[in-house]
């Protein structure tokens, strides 16, 4: 099934807006995770723009597609796209991480319209997605479940419990996107615990896998459709750049979980025009 037709140019423009939102809200909060938000945002923009069947006027519809953001620290990327799709407004984003805000530090379904999962502890989202995918089948609903994982997150054993279970149960309504940005909290992934050829590993667990450049919008859109058209559970390993779009954050482990200061905000915004 082919979903929404949107031009690559309009997706790229939206991604730029989202990048500005991401950097701005983290700067305002004085805390947050810019690196993994910026690496993931092109993928998220394409997913919401071309595949995800969600409606801000009916955020709790039982038939909505689910987006499970397992790498919940990249919450600014989710809040940015939810603003573009009218689930949140600018003042919501301005409250990011402040007391009582609907934009909690890590994405939380209890607090935010349009968020389907409470993340923050890595390794749990794919299992949750198995639950929603099973529920769809039991109720004969055709909604899809999309799960985004971080590459560092695949160091968690539970992820592999879930990969094994999803293919065993042939959950063809379950889709994974791995943001392979090669950096985790402390350092590069290959310094902390190299995960190696993660595409090959996921494939060995019974999934169909495709590798793409996670910043090539055309390739992303095409891969998302491939995932929809592929029988059985399917995963996209998206090779990305941590901090993509802000030169001094790119490939820089120190911007995994650090807010830009005032001068850095100015520099970043000059680049994101």
């Amino acid at each position, binding site marked *: 099934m082919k979903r929404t037709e949107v031009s690559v140019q309009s997706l790229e423009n939206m991604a730029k807006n989202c990048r500005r939102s991401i950097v701005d809200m983290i700067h305002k909060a004085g805390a947050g995770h810019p690196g993994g938000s910026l690496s993931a945002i092109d993928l998220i923009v394409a997913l919401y723009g071309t595949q995800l069947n969600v409606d801000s006027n009916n955020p709790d519809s039982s038939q909505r597609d689910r987006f499970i953001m397992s790498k919940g620290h990249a919450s600014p990327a989710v809040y940015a796209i939810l603003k573009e799709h009218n689930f949140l407004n600018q003042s919501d984003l301005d409250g990011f991480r402040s007391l009582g805000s609907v934009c909690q530090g890590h994405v939380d379904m*209890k607090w935010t319209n349009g968020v389907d999962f409470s993340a923050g*502890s890595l390794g749990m989202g794919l*299992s*949750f997605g*198995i*639950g929603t995918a*099973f*529920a769809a089948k*039991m109720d004969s609903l055709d909604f899809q479940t999309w799960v985004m994982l971080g590459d560092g997150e695949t160091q968690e054993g539970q992820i592999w419990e879930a990969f094994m279970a999803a293919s065993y*149960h042939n959950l063809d309504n379950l889709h994974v996107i791995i943001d392979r940005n090669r950096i985790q909290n402390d350092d590069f992934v290959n310094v902390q615990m190299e995960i190696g050829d993660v595409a090959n590993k996921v494939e060995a667990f019974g999934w169909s896998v495709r590798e793409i450049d996670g910043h090539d919008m055309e390739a992303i859109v095409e891969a998302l459709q491939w995932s929809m058209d592929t029988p059985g559970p399917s995963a996209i390993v998206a090779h990305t750049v941590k901090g993509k779009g802000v030169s001094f954050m790119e490939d820089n482990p120190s911007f995994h979980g650090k807010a830009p200061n005032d001068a850095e905000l100015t520099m970043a915004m000059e680049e994101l025009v």
Partner: protein
Amino acid sequence: MSAPSTGGASRDGYGAALLNLADDPRVVVIEADLGKSTKSCLFRELYPERTISLGIAEQNMVLVAAGLASCGKVPFASTFAIFTERAFEQVRNGLARPGLVAHICGSHGGIHTGTDGSSAQSIEDLALYRTIPGMTVMHPSDDLSATKLTEELLNHPNPSYTRTARNKTPRIYDVDTVKSIQIGKGSVLKEGDDVAIIAIGVMVHKALEAAENLRSDGINATVVDMHTIKPLDTKLLDELANSVSGIVTVEDHSVIGGLGSAVSEYLSENNPTKIRKIGVDDRFGESGDSEELLSLVGLTVESIETAARTML
């Protein structure tokens, strides 16, 4: 020899309840390999399309339950009590924190589990789950009450943890008396003015036996099956504190954090009362017959009697 593993253990009551709940299409049963032990296998045999086997993967199981719950299902997930602990953080962060309602059953709880040895004898599960905001925590005393309490979970507004026992113990209730059991309301099994014995799980029948022995010495004991440890029946605790000279708590669980702690926490602040806690002292178990093990750690009728006498 351990007691028979089938017929009358509280885990059998759990299995029976799942069958009784099956008419509700929201009910989904989830297993991490041990369905034959927890007795969810009974549901699986009749309703395979609503039973999900996840293999030996408890962390995955808890989040699958959470995902199902987010779509309106009422998942019942079970494994050994001790192995639910492996997924404690999943229960905390993935299930209870977002306010999703799924029900975890940990079978083979306590040192009473027997010959499998200390690795299988969860004596800290009730303490762990009691710390999670909004979590209901239960430990029924026989098969009939396990069935009733599990059935009550169908429309319960909170996630829950229920510990069941592997081995058969004498029935506390019959088909009529069990009807009055409710989540969060302690069951007064015997009334007496001198001392109160509050017990859970496999220790309830020993508490009743101790009360019988005390009566022959002219000591009248109230006996309560406090099957719900959280939310705790504080109204009943106040009534007891106001009417008896002291309270003995009895549990096949660590004295740290379980029933005795819960009762002490409430009464020490609200209605100071003499309390003696009988449970597993700060130690692990070992292999052995259920009764041998209970004796080894001091979970005996005699120790309940002795503690009760110190209250007079």
